[in-house]
């Protein structure tokens, strides 16, 4: 399943940690019409480049799905960055 939520966090100047919960499922919904429009062009371009579009779309989908569970957290005295994909 593709990521539905992304949590971004960082530390503000006053030391407080701020977290943003980004519902990316809304982004997917917004991007869907654009993807549908671009899909035929991408399909033709891939065929011209002698790449199997179905295999490539499948691999791309698997990468997108594989992102779920990713967590990157970097912290030092001056900064804090958090990226979580759920």
């Amino acid at each position, binding site marked *: 399943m593709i990521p539905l939520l992304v949590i971004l966090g960082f530390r503000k100047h006053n030391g407080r940690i701020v977290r943003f919960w980004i519902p990316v499922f809304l982004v997917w919904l917004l991007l869907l019409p654009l993807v549908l429009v671009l899909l035929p062009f991408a399909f033709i371009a891939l065929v011209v480049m002698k790449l199997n579009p179905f295999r490539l779309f499948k691999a*791309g989908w698997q*990468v997108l799905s594989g992102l779920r569970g990713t967590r*990157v957290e970097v912290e030092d005295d001056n900064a804090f960055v958090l990226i979580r994909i759920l």
Partner: protein
Amino acid sequence: MNEERRQILEMLSSGKITTDEAERLLAALDTPPATASSAASSEPGLKPNPKYLRVLVEDRSQRPGKGHTQVNVRVPMQLLRAGVRLASFIPAQAQNRVNDALREQGIQLDLSQLKPENLEELVNQISELTVDVDDDDTKVRVFCE
């Protein structure tokens, strides 16, 4: 008393099995049947497939302008597998350049030979692996969970 218990007791009374064996069989009847996955995970020596690759870095050096630094990265194994599949779409020319760059760094790896089934084998092997580097200033841990 159900049929299985009756049969076990009959086998015991007729001397076909010992009391210890009867006890084990009766205990086995009381235990609910385990699923294949839970049986595999409960079996000693067999670990379930790891889901994540974790990299933990802790820098305790007190350099000017840089204090205590911590890095905590968790990468899903699924993403690694998908990445290898995607790598097969890299054009041959670009693959050669990557291979050359790796060779310059002393890494003898041919990207074109990297297949998902190889990665599966690699993932199975690294599930047991833990890299633990610890010195006065820095601590690095790489492991699967």
